[in-house]
């Protein structure tokens, strides 16, 4: 009986998500729509040793705010379906912009693996990225990949499986917001933690941050269930 693992692929538009998705799943793909909306949803299966890995391709986004439909879809999938692992495809030649989404997943507290894609392109542009350091700083495993040459895919798959099995234990990194903001986060978190129903599927710190940011979806969630 093969073990089932669900993973979600996330990344900025043009980070090479589709190529990685194809590398992982080959021809075993299914294209449909996300429920209720006309945004395309691609799914596929990858068989690896004793594992059946279900791969869900999330819409390409820069962040996980509630401003666009794509972002809401990506976020809700991660929060509500809780995939075993989220694979964040990061464009190495646009590291700074791409890592913003990464910070969002880190704060959501998901099991995260980074595929540092197009590292060949970055190098051609004269940038060298220290992946070991990057991984230490983020507390997330970082696997260099070159999607269009199908490089790094095996290591990526193995890391995903290890992550799902809980074999990788990196120290979780928390992004600090400075004394004053932290104080307020703490106050809000304290209140949230008294309400068990709220923290299902997402950490209280993330909820507190989203509320402070004025995130409409999260605010609505808190307001609606009030009555």
């Amino acid at each position, binding site marked *: 009986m093969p073990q089932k693992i669900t993973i979600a692929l996330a990344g900025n538009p043009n980070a090479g998500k589709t190529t990685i998705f194809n590398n992982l799943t080959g021809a075993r793909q299914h294209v449909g729509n996300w429920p209720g909306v006309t945004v395309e949803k691609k799914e596929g299966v990858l068989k690896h040793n004793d594992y059946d890995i279900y791969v869900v391709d999330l819409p390409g986004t820069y962040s996980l705010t509630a401003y666009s439909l794509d972002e809401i879809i990506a976020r809700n999938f991660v929060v509500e379906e809780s995939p075993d692992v989220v694979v964040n495809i990061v464009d190495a030649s646009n590291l700074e912009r791409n*890592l913003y989404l990464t910070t969002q997943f880190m704060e959501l507290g998901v099991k995260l693996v980074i595929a540092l894609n197009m590292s060949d392109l970055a190098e051609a542009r004269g940038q060298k990225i220290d992946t070991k350091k990057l991984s230490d700083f983020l507390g997330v495993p970082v696997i260099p990949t070159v999607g269009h040459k199908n490089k790094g895919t095996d290591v990526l798959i193995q890391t995903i499986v290890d992550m799902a099995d809980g074999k990788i234990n990196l120290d979780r990194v928390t992004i600090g917001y400075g004394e004053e903001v932290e104080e307020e986060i703490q106050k809000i978190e304290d*209140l949230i933690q008294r309400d068990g129903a709220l923290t299902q599927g997402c950490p209280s710190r993330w909820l507190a941050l989203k509320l402070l940011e004025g995130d409409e979806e999260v605010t609505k969630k808190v307001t609606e269930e009030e009555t």
Partner: protein
Amino acid sequence: MERREILDQVKRSSAHLKSISGDDIETIISERRYGFISGICKQVVTRSMEERLTTSDNIDRIVINRSLGIPVFLFLMWLMFKFTFTVSGIPMGWVEDGQEWLGDTIGDLFPEGSILGSLITDGVIGGVGSVIIFVPLIFTLFFCIAILEDSGYMARAAFVMDRFMHKIGLHGRSFIPMILGFGCTITGIMATRTIEQKRDRFTTILVNPFMSCGARLPVYALLIGTFFPEKGGTVLYSIYILGIIMAIIMAKIFRKYLFPGPPSPFVMELPPYRMPTIKGVIIHMWERGALYLKKAGTIIFAGCILVWFLSNFPWNPQYSRDYDALKQKAEADFASGLVTKEAMNETIANLKNEQASEKMQKSYMGGLGRIIEPAVRPLGFDWKIGVGLAGGFVAKEIVVGTLGTLYAVGKADEEAVSLRERLQNDTWPDGRKIFTPLTAFALMVFTLLYVPCVASIAVIRKETNSWKWPLFAAGYTTALAWIAAFMIYQGGKLIGL
């Protein structure tokens, strides 16, 4: 109901944060995230090509430049102390004048020899007042620190020092508690909680007291103002730098022998520069400054009264001579025409002086001082300084408060003379001045290095969860202070200072 509470709290928090920073909260949060990312990228990516530069990047080209970063940091620190000393000098003069006037006015309300009068004028006004004088100075320093923090420069300072901190086995994250230690050691030690590795954290805690806190500032301010009026900023700066150097040396030693192991990886956050808002700066300055005022009103107040009590009691000691009879004799001599009025006044003034000085030597404080004096004598300190330093264990400002009280008690004439003048005029029995610039400097170094105040010790106990480390911290800092002051005083004497 609870959900409503959450939303209300969110509203309050947002409004509060917005009022401090002048920016909306979403911007602040995303700025921090970008700061985190930018810090990572600067350390992870090696670039061989010119990058597009934003304003922040442009400033950073100089400020966090490999070779310019540290000089820029040192220059800004120097500028900060210079500014602090120059600007606060004027209001400090007003407070000092006001305090003298208050002491004289209230003193006149009480009959001579009144215990209550002495308590109020010498104990409270003399002791607490000498601490209050430094309020303008402390607020100015906190004002400068707030500007550096709010503008985003402090994060750069930590970044610049990160490379350097690695050399002593720590990293930039340890640097932030150190900078906070300039305000108050307790805040600094509490900030070490963000350091995950125990070995990094404990090292940072143990060396934090060397970052000269705001409470030590009154001691420097008093001594510098009195003995180095021309070079105030520079001398003060050198004391702070000495503290930093000591912290570095000790950190290196602790890291090697007490807590060996490699430093842990850590991201330096580099939020973009921003214009500090007046409101934000004022709030930050006030938060820290208010702590100082509160301490002056509570623990220092109590400490000064204790010092006053110890130095005034027993109220009527067994004198070696009958001063009252001698005074009456002088008056009688004048009445019978044996001496002139001037001669009588001089005799009486001298008698009063001798009486006051004998009284103090016979007080409890005098007794305590005699016990302490042999230990501090090699450093050029007399018993009064020894007692002041002992009082400083309660809170370092009390060193000044104690000197204020002790010298007020010792005053012979009714004219209030400022503490500064009294320090300058005090002599050893053989007539040599007690306070020279050399003694003053040795005393400042001792104050910088010796035992952290009682509240800091309590915090170290709490944060390390054992009595071992606070006791160790108290012991090694005091030993180090003694050695350093000894070397300065004796070395200075050797070269003829």
